[in-house]
């Protein structure tokens, strides 16, 4: 069988994992560098992918398709399109950087990097899988390494956090599985083919059932996003997870929820997406737009009250993921492009934020916002980078999040103006908690307790600089990514809109 580029990207980390397992457990250096090497290839291939990706081609590219279980028509079917390409790149990038962010790990080094590489395979696989069964396998595959990575290498309450994460996400997957099976059995012959299933099941499932399936899938994905009210695992998981894992969790894992909705809910059940749900509004309105708006505002308000820096960032993630939900609910080119761009941007920015939290935590061993003060005078370079990341998270123009947030809000306005007004108010709230945090931690009189705090070091800068560069470049020249994703996304949005149930109830 011919191994495609995507297969290499997905499974090369596993090879690295195997190599690590063969190394003696005390050989920390070789283990770390092997892990780094194992993530380099996917990164390099993702660059190659970017260069060779044709945004205007309809359908999937770099497809590899082999039969796996012929009896059940299960296939090893992978490919990328405009929806997933950025996510693949993001995964490769963050995995690579996080390996370096993990060099400080001293406990169970071998296990840590082995699991980390397994996690990368799971993430990468989820984004490229085009067979529902394969998708589900990868989806669940991420769960175990994550559980251990949080549970073993996490903070004081790591067990609680790990188990909470585990159970929540597993609960989500359960619903996912039921819906997937239902979809699988509907057409004859049965099919797991994500690219065909939409057409195959469209006329075979009554609309009400489609809506139920849609909601089941949605709940499964919403837990991952995490959408209100399924979000409470996130702050705990983040607070306890080691830095690199927080980065992966927020940077990549959360995206899987929204990616799943785009790929599966929209792709396979477009009719249900705009079917009326309640009060004359559609499913997408209630579950994506309204809930997304709630996420934005609620996450921001909750963030404001946090005293733990990491928790604050975690809540800000909840808030920022709300933009994605709102944007993708609008089905305007701007909205859906903004949503997917926001996925990417949030991935980079939040990764920076968590890395920065990790930097200070490594030195001070706590993250209490009020326990610092005046860091700007002690560690100006670190403060500068933090300020950059904070303002990026605030959506300062010129930085990438601005583009995506504006696109989301602009896209949403046409369809849901009132919600957009509410959502846009978060620009104030976000500025509020971010600046307040900056003020309390970094500005003011330096806290003598931390007068000797070490400045950010080269390795840490190495993990941050590429992200900062991306944030800046995409703020100025977002076309780089918009061009890649836009045709596929617009097609998807049009497809959903075209499939909307014809009668009385419009999308609004």
């Amino acid at each position, binding site marked *: 069988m011919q191994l495609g580029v995507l297969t290499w990207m997905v499974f090369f980390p596993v090879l690295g994992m195997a190599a690590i397992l063969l190394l003696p457990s005390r050989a920390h250096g070789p283990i770390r560098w092997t892990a780094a090497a194992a993530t380099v290839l996917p990164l390099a291939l993702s660059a190659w992918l970017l260069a060779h990706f044709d945004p205007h081609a309809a359908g999937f590219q770099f497809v590899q398709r082999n039969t796996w279980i012929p009896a059940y028509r299960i296939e090893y079917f992978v490919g990328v399109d405009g929806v997933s390409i950025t996510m693949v790149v993001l995964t490769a990038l963050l995995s690579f950087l996080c390996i370096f962010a993990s060099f400080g790990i001293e406990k169970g080094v071998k296990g840590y990097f082995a699991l980390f590489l397994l996690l990368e395979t799971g993430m990468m696989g989820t984004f490229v899988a085009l067979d529902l069964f394969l998708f589900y396998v990868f989806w669940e595959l991420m769960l175990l390494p994550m559980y251990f990575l949080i549970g073993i290498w996490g903070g004081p309450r790591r067990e*609680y956090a790990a*188990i*909470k994460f585990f*159970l929540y996400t597993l609960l989500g997957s359960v619903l996912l599985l039921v819906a997937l099976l239902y979809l699988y059995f509907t057409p004859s012959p049965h099919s797991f083919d994500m690219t065909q299933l939409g057409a195959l099941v469209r006329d075979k499932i009554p609309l009400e059932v489609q809506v139920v399936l849609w909601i089941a899938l949605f709940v499964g994905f919403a837990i991952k996003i995490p959408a*209100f*009210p*399924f*979000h*409470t695992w996130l702050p705990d998981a983040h607070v306890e997870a080691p830095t690199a894992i927080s980065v992966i969790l927020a940077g990549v894992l959360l995206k899987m929820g929204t990616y799943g909705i785009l790929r599966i809910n929209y792709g396979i059940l477009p009719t249900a997406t705009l079917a009326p749900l309640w009060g004359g509004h559609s499913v997408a309105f209630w579950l994506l737009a309204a809930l997304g708006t709630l996420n934005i505002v*609620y996450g921001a*308000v*909750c*963030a*404001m*009250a*946090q005293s733990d820096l990491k928790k604050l960032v975690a809540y800000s993630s909840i808030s920022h993921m709300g933009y994605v939900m709102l944007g993708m609910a609008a089905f*305007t*080119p*701007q909205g859906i*492009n903004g949503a997917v761009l926001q996925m990417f941007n949030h991935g980079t920015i939040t990764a920076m934020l968590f890395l920065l939290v990790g930097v200070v935590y490594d030195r001070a061993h706590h993250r209490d916002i009020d326990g610092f003060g*005046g860091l*700007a*005078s002690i560690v100006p370079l670190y403060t500068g980078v933090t300020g950059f990341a904070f*303002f990026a998270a605030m959506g*300062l*123009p*010129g930085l990438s999040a*601005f*583009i995506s947030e*504006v*696109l989301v*809000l*602009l896209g949403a*306005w*046409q369809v849901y*103006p009132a919600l*957009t*007004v509410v959502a*846009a*108010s978060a*620009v*104030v*709230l976000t*500025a*509020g*908690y971010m*600046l307040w945090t*900056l*003020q309390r931690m970094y*500005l*003011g*009189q*330096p806290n003598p307790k931390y007068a000797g705090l070490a400045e950010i070091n080269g390795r840490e800068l190495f993990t941050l600089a590429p992200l900062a560069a991306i944030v800046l470049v995409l703020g*100025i*020249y*977002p*076309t780089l990514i*918009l061009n890649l994703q*836009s045709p596929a996304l*617009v097609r998807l949005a049009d497809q959903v809109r075209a499939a909307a149930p014809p009668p009385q109830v419009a999308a609004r």
Partner: protein
Amino acid sequence: MDEPTSAAYVALIPLLPLAGAALLGLFGAPLQKRLGKGAVGWLACATVGAAFLLSVAAFLQLVRMAPEERGLGLLADLFPWIHVGTLRVDVAFMVDPLSAVMILVVTGIGGLIHVYATGYMHDDPAFWRFFAYLNLFTFAMLTLVLGDSLLLLFVGWEGVGFCSWALISFWHKEPANARAGNKAFIVNRIGDFGFILGIFLLFWALDAHGHGTLLFRELRAHAPVLAADRLWGVAVPTLVTLFLFVGATGKSAQIPLYVWLPDAMAGPTPVSALIHAATMVTAGVYMIGRLGFLFTMAPATLWLVACIGAATALLAATIAVAQNDIKKVLAYSTVSQLGYMFLAMGVGAYGAGVFHLVTHAFFKACLFLGSGSVIHAMGGEQDMRKMGGLWRKLPATGRTFLIATLAITGCPFLAGFFSKDAILWEAYSSPGGHVGLWAVGTLVAGLTAFYMFRQVFMVFFGECRADHETQHHIHESPAVMTIPLWVLAAGSILAGYLGVPHSLGGPLGIPQLFERWLEPVTGPRFLAEAAGAGGGDAGVELALMAVSVAVAAGGVVVAWLLYVRRRPDPATFSAALGGVPYRLVLNKWYVDEIYQAVFVEGTLRLAALAAWWDRWVIDGLVNGAAAVVRGVSAAAGLFDRWVVDGAVNVLADGTYFVGRRVRRIQTGAVNTYLYVIVLGVLGGVALWWSRAGAG
């Protein structure tokens, strides 16, 4: 549609300061260490200076162009920025008459302030950082005025906000400075919130007609189609302009979002001069001028703009009367003057508003830099009650300060006189105007004269009230600081002659250059009307002018009586009516306190509540009916455990609990086991019966 003239060099105007900012931001520290502060200062000033020269070049190119071409302006289209769906925005800079004026002000006055700052900030170790920010600000401000689309304008709009934050909290060790910076940014964000909603609405309203765009030149062409549109029962142009105006109130410190500006004086004085007087705060005025065609379609908004402008002017002027901090007075004065500008915009006199913007930039920058010079001389003292008698000790500062004060007071034939009277006249005579607006404006002119001269008298005349040590050190600032003062003072005198009103200049053959220059942008409507009506009303105009000059003079006299002659004693006024009006004014009408209590505290309370809610209720609910299970467990005598553990883990524990109950079936006694068999069989039979209806 005709295309604007392509002129790539225009892009250098903002990009040069950006390059300076980038260089200084990334390499400023080593640069300063290796080559000294001089190199840093030179680099910073050079970029702005070069930008100024390019601005002049662009201006001259515009001058040479035919008026209709001029309206389209010069365009440097760099690269596509956001092209999604019908939204197509490029990174493109455009110079038209309005932005030409603005860039001249920004780079010209900004350049002078840069020069001044090399002296003012000379002892600061973070010298490089200051200039990096200053250059970045210049870039952002230039982007704001040069951007060819509303979205790019917004980039500059937020960008200047960021720089403002960075510069206000520049001396970040002082918590108050950091708080002031945050206040500025957050209050601005409230405005921005409205602003971007305005952008969205405008875009989609046009898109509905097939003209979705945010480019100014296309907006101008297509805006008329919106005339009949309505959203939420409001005419779309009105709603759009209202949203945009919210943004303007934030950026330009109008009611109700003016509160950040006085606090922003926490920044270094050049910053106050550049950002919080001459340039950034006028962005709102610029924006309204830029979108004048749209505001014209929304008379309701214009009326609101005028009223807010007048009210702000009055409110700020009353507060300024009682302030003792030298910069606070100027800050409130700025707010007040900005109110004037909005008053002008509100009555449709875009030209007059922008004209006042320009003249105000000169004299207010001069005043701020002068106050900086004073503070510099006094060793950082800002309280005017500890000054006095500095006229002789600081000759250059004193003289330039007086000139600028006269200009702002509206002393005839100085810059402020022309611009302020243009506004007052428009407020009175414009179709959108009202005699009430004029009256308020005139009253404010009097108040302005009073508090400005109060300041002059308190700072420069009378006995020096500083302690001996300070007095000993008082000295005039170096030339690098005084030269910009003199230049600005000259501007405060001369700038007015760009826009001599028809009633005065017409007979003398002096043309109203300014409004004619802006005509391609703001449209000829008011000029034509004013000119048409002006023929008969020239007398009225002159009469009104005389009234306002008289009122201003009255203000000066009162200030002289109170603060030089000291009879009557100002304290008698302070104590009047039980001191209530004085305390109200002194404490800025308690607006800050009210905002703090209502909005800031409210938000924080809400945040705490939400966090509590999230922790205990959502988590609890999601984890499964907290209360119910807690109740059950209480019955089981496990209350302590539940209370201690909280409801966090309720589902797990609840399941666990049920699990333990289930385990009890496994009694260990075999009879029970056998019972279960029998019950199981009977249960099965019963089930069958119930299903088969015993058949």
